[in-house]
């Protein structure tokens, strides 16, 4: 039955290929590193490819900043038959965050990894790192529900490995990685169950198509169960409060460069997936119908904000403290979702980005401290602020951003969140939000005091960290300050993304028809 079917096609330019190149460049770097096998080539290749993907992400972000979207049909099969890559404001934004973090973290990693991981592992380490980048970006960029799972697993598996590489410093990295593996796999399996149930009711895997076919199925119990499984499954990856158990150990014992990258991106990508499913696939109407879920997420978010912050206050290890603070900050993001308004979502998106760069600064500083002081227990880093003035100043900036002091990036997200609370009429919620940031004052200030006001530990090396650590750290720190004042980029992108999300797939198809019309010319 093989009749000759001509392929009608106009040749695509490089610009049309941007969405796939975004993934492909880091993706191919990993096997190339392994294939060539030269240790000295690994880092330059990784860095160049992450730089390229940052450039591509920026170009994509510019292309979709008007609220349109780009659809790329993998294999030339039109969705829903084939897999589609769909770049819109929301995911271009997250892509930018991921590739930017990778680009900033890699120079930092060069000396940090050399210090923390044996030499013979370096090539494989960078290959794994690039796979992790690929996985996270793949999760974000795709428009296909099952493809999310595949790339989620790429990122997860490489993450487990990366975390376990901390075992050369502390053997607990192994159990941390194992726990993460178990919980991550449970989460991924739940996610797969959810997608299976959705496939059962819709017969498709393409998210946009799924959304179209889910309209009016709010009462369908299978869909409701699917929603629950997807939220819980991704919730494990996000580390929503009661599902966060893997996070503190994983962040604490992973190598510094890995922690930096994960804290800035991994949970963010997962939150993006939650958003994407809640708002694009299930649609705001559906989520609103099952408002009980919002009422579950809201209190859990509040619980995370307080409980995790309280735990953070009582830590004696800077790195672990930051890990708990991450859980608390994830609470803010979930709260933005729970408030269910454009402003709330904007707050989530903004905090996604701002918390990313804030944590990047802080964890890079942790890496520098580990290099010079040996560990990050408070009694080891006493007085290091004076010995390492630039690192210390970066910690202060990051800490202030974590608290949400005006002039730093963290303030903008807090502002949006409180504004969303007021707009929703929950003025008490606003008070709770700001009250929780007081807890951040407590745990951040303890570190600042330790760094500046105590006499230094005798065993520590009292020199500034190498330039390759300082420069990326300060790039992130300055970004932290810059995005705290100039909010045009971040707010525009986030609110475009939030608008698109809140409109559900309806908004998307309207935009898409307009974009299609534009594309025809």
């Amino acid at each position: 039955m093989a009749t000759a079917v001509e392929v009608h096609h106009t040749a695509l330019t490089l610009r049309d290929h941007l969405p796939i190149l975004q993934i492909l460049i880091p993706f191919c770097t990993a096997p190339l590193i392994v294939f060539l096998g030269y240790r000295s080539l690994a880092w330059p290749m990784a860095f160049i490819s992450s730089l390229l993907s940052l450039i591509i992400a920026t170009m994509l972000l510019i292309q979709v900043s008007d609220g349109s979207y780009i659809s790329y049909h993998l294999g030339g099969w039109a969705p829903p038959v084939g897999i589609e890559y769909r770049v819109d404001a929301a995911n271009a934004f997250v892509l930018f965050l991921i590739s930017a973090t990778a680009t900033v973290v890699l120079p930092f990693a060069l000396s940090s990894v050399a210090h923390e991981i044996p030499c013979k592992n370096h090539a494989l380490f960078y290959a794994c790192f690039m796979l992790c980048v690929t996985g996270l970006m793949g999760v974000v960029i795709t428009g296909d529900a099952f493809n999310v799972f595949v790339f989620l697993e790429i990122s997860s598996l490489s993450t487990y490995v990366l975390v376990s590489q901390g075992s050369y410093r502390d053997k607990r990295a192994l159990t941390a990685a194992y726990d993460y593996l178990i919980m991550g796999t449970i989460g991924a399996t739940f996610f797969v169950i959810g997608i299976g149930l959705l496939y059962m009711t819709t017969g498709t895997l393409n998210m946009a198509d799924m959304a179209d076919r889910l309209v009016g199925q709010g009462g369908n119990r299978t869909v409701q169960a699917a929603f629950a499984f997807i939220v819980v499954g991704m919730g494990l990856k996000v580390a929503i409060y009661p599902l966060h158990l893997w996070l503190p150990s994983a962040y604490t014992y992973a190598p510094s460069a890995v922690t930096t990258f994960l804290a800035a991106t991994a949970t963010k990508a997962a939150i993006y997936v939650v958003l994407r499913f809640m708002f694009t696939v299930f649609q705001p109407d559906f989520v609103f119908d099952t408002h009980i879920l919002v009422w579950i997420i809201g209190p859990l978010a509040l619980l995370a904000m307080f409980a995790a912050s309280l735990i953070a206050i009582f830590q004696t290890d800077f790195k672990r403290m930051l890990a708990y603070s991450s859980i608390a900050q994830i609470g803010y993001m979930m709260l933005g979702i729970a408030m269910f308004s454009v402003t709330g979502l904007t707050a989530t998106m903004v905090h996604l980005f701002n918390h990313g760069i804030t944590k990047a600064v802080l964890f890079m500083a942790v890496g520098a401290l580990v290099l010079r002081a040996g560990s990050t227990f408070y009694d080891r880093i006493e007085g290091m602020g004076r010995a390492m003035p630039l690192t210390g100043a970066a910690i202060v900036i990051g800490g202030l951003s974590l608290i949400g002091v005006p002039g730093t990036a963290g303030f903008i997200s807090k502002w949006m969140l409180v504004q969303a609370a007021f707009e929703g009429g929950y003025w008490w919620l606003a008070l709770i939000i700001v009250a929780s940031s007081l807890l951040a004052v407590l745990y951040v200030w303890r570190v600042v005091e330790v760094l500046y006001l105590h006499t230094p530990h005798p065993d520590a090396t009292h020199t500034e960290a190498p330039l390759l650590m300082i420069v990326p750290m300060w790039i992130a720190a300055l970004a932290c300050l810059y995005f705290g004042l100039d909010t045009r980029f971040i707010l525009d992108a986030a609110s475009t993304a939030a608008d698109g999300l809140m409109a559900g797939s309806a908004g998307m198809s309207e935009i898409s028809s307009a974009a299609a019309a534009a594309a025809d010319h």
Partner: protein
Amino acid sequence: MELSTLIFASMVLPTLAMFANLIFAKQANLRDTITFVAALLTFACVVAIAAKVGNTTTPQIVLFEVFANVPIAFNVEPLGLLFALVASGLWIVTHIYAIGYMRGNNESHHARFFGCFAGAIAAALGIAWSSNMFTLFLYYEILTISTYPLVAHKGTPEAIRGARTYLGILLGTSIALQLTAVIWTYTLAGTLDFQLGGILRDNISPTLLPILLALYAFGIGKAALMPFHRWLPAAMVAPTPVSALLHAVAVVKAGVFTMLKVGVYIFGIDFLAETGASDWLMWLAAYTIIASSVIAMQQDNLKKRLAYSTVSQLSYITLGMALASQMAVVGGGVHIAMHAMGKITLFMCAGAIYVATHKTEISQMTGLGRTMPITFAAFGIGALSIIGLPPLGGSWSKWLLMVGSADAGHQIMIAVLMISSLLNVAYLLPVIGRGFYRDDTANPYTGIKEAPLFCWLPPAATAIGCLILFFTAGSIVDFLMPITGLPQ
């Protein structure tokens, strides 16, 4: 020069001074000279601005927009100009004094100290020029953080504890309450610009108005309204120039200045008067005035006593705002200048005594007056100004506040002010009394032995300033009249 250039120059110069201090950390003389020149230039800028615009309100100079309708923006208006004049003018004095104090007292970390000092002044000027609540809040927080190292300067556990209280209360209240209030205001009004007559008039239900006001009143922790006043005595662990800066020039004045700004430009005094939303604040301010005066009487540590005195005096200004009558508000504004001049004199004197004799407790100071006559004379003048006796500056502001109370129909506040004056007498005059009149063996007279020149000259100058202010008060009142909204 352009107005905008002057405004930015007045903020950039102290910032540059801050960096210069950090860069030239090792060259003490160069560093101090640069700072001094910067202080002079800053003051010159502010004076130039004053000469240029007088008491008119200039349009906004928008730097860039942060949120929709919320830019980082600056303008000049009478209240802010007054605050700027006070802050930049007294910086020169305090700087000279601080050089003397720090060197005379062999304190460490000079560069950090002077750097943060300059940073705090930059932030104070930013507060003064802010033309919307957001900008003001931004600089308010910068001020808090830049003064934290000053309070913790000594690095002793006690200092750290004090600094922790300081930061905890100031950062806590501002983030928890003031920020909430700001965002709430923004949600209600859609803007945060300072406008004469307020921006909330048609946007808020009367029942919520007192809550919003409370968020502001308690959120502005720097105004030291009870129960959020504890940071002020706690911050007394800092070196005295810092106390002078905190309690006279930058921090507390920034607090009450913000309070006035909120009252005048966010709520509008007419709106407050009509709705009576600020009545409770008036009572709270009155309570703070009396209560902290009573506490001050029980303090033996001179700086602690002065701190509680400051708490009390600050509430005068809050009271002026809460009374919501034109005269009271002007009185509050005038009091910023008067109290600044008086209180800085007192603190610098306390510091001079410490430098010369290392005594901090009042009970140890008996008979010191004869050893340090200039210091104690200056202290006396400052004290009298705080008490409100003519011919010293402090008398005017109290008078205006009393008139304002009468205007507002709260005659009982006159009584409060009177009682407070009596209490002032009761806790300030004994210090001078002990110094001059008691004969004691504790400090036998061995000839005049003042603190170094840089330590006693500045308080003497500001004491004279108190006198001068009495005679220029009329022009200050005229200067401030536009904020009442009345035609001149």
